[in-house]
């Protein structure tokens, strides 16, 4: 009797959010798919069937090739950099030094800032101007005699996007640190001590014991950072504006849809973004659900 009542109440309470998610997420995804298969160009909706031509056109589009290249470089540098830096910070904080709480907050703070603010600050720091107008990092490098480090930052051909990833690493490595720190704290001390008694070096302990035990954390970090970097938009806009050498799919989607009114093409880019994120996220969600069910 009471179980039925519970179930009734459960369904009742959850139904508005289910409905909202159904409409505002899944129906809209479906609608975007439909638009991406149409010839819609201009302000008035046009659902003339266009098959997968929008997608085929994108794969031939040299600008989309730039986008894919940039996304790959950005994701690689950003995810790898954040994980390495976050792990090093976490290990250092885990040594039980004085003022740990202070440093923990210090490293975590950048995460509380929006990408736009980060972008504006890093735009100043990474100013590529030369001669008397040199400023930011380049000026710092010149003044301390590290002239060889002076570079073009985000205006470097091909690899400029990696400079944007630096700003993203600055922002997100504290978060990765927090993930790793929690993971490190969850590993029982006995394991470490047993390894020491067996004569393992500190490096071996981290390489053979800690890292394998932290692999779920690494996976989480990989997924969370990975899907963020696929969707990056605001950081690039704040640092460099709309410039083709730093173009990514999200910016192309925005420009082609709202500046160029190619709604069909814009929707196609959106769907490709969704698929790329889903490829990353769905196996992770299944994995998490499975492990949760096991425990």
């Amino acid at each position, binding site marked *: 009797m009471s179980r039925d009542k519970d179930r009734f109440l459960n369904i*009742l309470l959850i139904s508005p959010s289910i*409905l909202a998610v159904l409409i505002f997420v899944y129906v809209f995804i479906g609608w975007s798919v439909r638009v991406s298969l149409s010839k819609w160009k201009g*302000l008035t909706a046009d659902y003339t069937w266009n098959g997968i031509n929008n997608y085929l056109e994108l794969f031939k589009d040299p600008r989309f090739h730039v986008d894919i290249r940039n996304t790959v470089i950005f994701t690689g540098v950003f995810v790898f950099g954040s994980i390495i830096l976050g792990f090093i910070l976490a290990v250092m904080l885990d040594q039980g030094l004085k003022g740990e709480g202070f440093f923990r907050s210090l490293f975590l703070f950048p995460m509380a800032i929006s990408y736009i603010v980060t972008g504006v600050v890093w735009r100043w720091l990474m100013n590529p101007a030369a001669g008397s107008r040199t400023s930011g990092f380049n000026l710092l490098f010149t003044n301390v005699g590290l002239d060889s480090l002076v570079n073009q930052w985000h205006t470097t051909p091909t690899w400029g996007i990696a400079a944007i990833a630096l700003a993203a690493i600055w922002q997100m490595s504290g978060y990765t640190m927090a993930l790793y720190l929690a993971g490190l704290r969850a590993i029982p001390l006995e394991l470490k001590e047993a390894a020491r008694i067996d004569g393992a070096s500190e490096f071996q302990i981290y390489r053979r014991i800690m890292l394998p035990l932290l692999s779920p954390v690494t996976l989480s970090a990989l997924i969370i950072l990975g899907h963020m970097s696929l969707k990056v938009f605001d950081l690039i806009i704040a640092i460099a504006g709309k*410039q083709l*050498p730093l173009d990514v799919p999200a910016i192309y989607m925005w420009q082609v849809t709202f500046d160029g009114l190619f709604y069909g093409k814009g929707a196609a880019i959106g769907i490709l973004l969704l698929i790329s994120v889903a490829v990353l996220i769905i196996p992770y969600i299944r994995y998490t659900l499975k492990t949760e069910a096991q425990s």
Partner: protein
Amino acid sequence: MTKKMWYSLMATLMITVLVLSACTTPATEAPPMTEPPETEAPMTEAPTEAAGTEAPMTEAPTGGQVEVFSWWTGGGEAAGLEAMMGVFAEQYPDVEFVNAAVAGGAGTNARAVLATRLQAGDPPDSWQGHAGQELIGTYVAGGQIEPLNDLYESEGWIDVMPETLIPLISQDGNIYSVPVNIHRANVLWYNPAVLEANGVEVPASIDEWFTAMDTLQAAGVTPLALGEQWTKMHLMETVLLGTLGADAYNGLWDGTTDWGSAEVKTGLDNFAKALTYANSDSSSLSWQDAAQLVINGDAAFNVMGDWAEGYFRELGKAPNTDYGWAPTPGSDGVFQFLSDSFVLAVGAPDAEAATAWLKIAGSKEGQEAFNPVKGSICARTDCDASLFGEYLQSAMDDWSTDVVVGSLAHGVVANDSWKTEIDTALGLFVADSNVENFQAALVAACTSSGPCK
């Protein structure tokens, strides 16, 4: 059990209905708004008949309100709009003016908001847009703005605006917007001291310009100050104009000049050559940064619209001593214009009030209130020159005598889709410097979104 299930299902449904109806109550205005799009179609086909549906409104000229949508939210633009609103309030004290401005440079955000409103069938009475194809290609094609020929005739605007302007803001003989201000795109700004120190004259032709820049480069001066991507498009259009001349340049936009032709190739080669004289950090500079290089003596030339002059004044600089100007090389006697203009929405909630607003926007009083504050010249040729500064007075002279052509980067000559495709081609070109690919992409863009077949 199953009965219980049914009860819970029923209850869930009822809650849902309640929730949904609660959601829709604030939007009670929505249903009538969805109707106008259906009535739009006949209006665009037979514009004169549209007056019939507006007839009841003309019988009640007082009262009402006009919602005017723009991206004028700061600086001289917002102040100019305020001034024009003052004129409006004087002449139409009964009409409430609703200023629906959305912040964001060059209207990118505002246009996205406007697109959403138009798709929802909720148009403002009148909105701002760059005169020309940016408006025509988007809103006329979508059947969302009314032709204004009657207004032009009754207000006598045809006689006070340059003859060569009218075709650029019309489609099939219908005029679609009221230009409030005029900016000139083809202006070459220079630093007189830098030119004098290097013995360089102000160039009149593209070849003279290149020779001058060679001299400057040899002397260790950055010859040309350039900024982010859209300023490169701005440079490209002025170089094309300087190479092709006014007629062939106009032909690019109506399909009579072949984008694949040898002359266009020459123009693009000139553009590519001009880029080699520019500062290396151009992509990290805004137009202000680039203009400032000239003022500070770090660079000799800058090609930018005449809003740069307002910026120079803001910096406390004096015309002719701190900065000089000339038409861009090869474009003497041609006025490449862009303009902010206002339209009349199809299905405007209060068409009568909207028309009143347009009358002010096109009037001498309205334009004389707006333009000195904004730092632009009137679209009318009869404004009082004494209200304006030295540069603007020279621009007013040129405006009334020169051949008028439209700007690409600022929405006059190409519709949004076409412009976006050109922008993409330009971005790829700046990265790889391949003129053949660039020209091929421009030919393709004209076919897919322009008049070329």
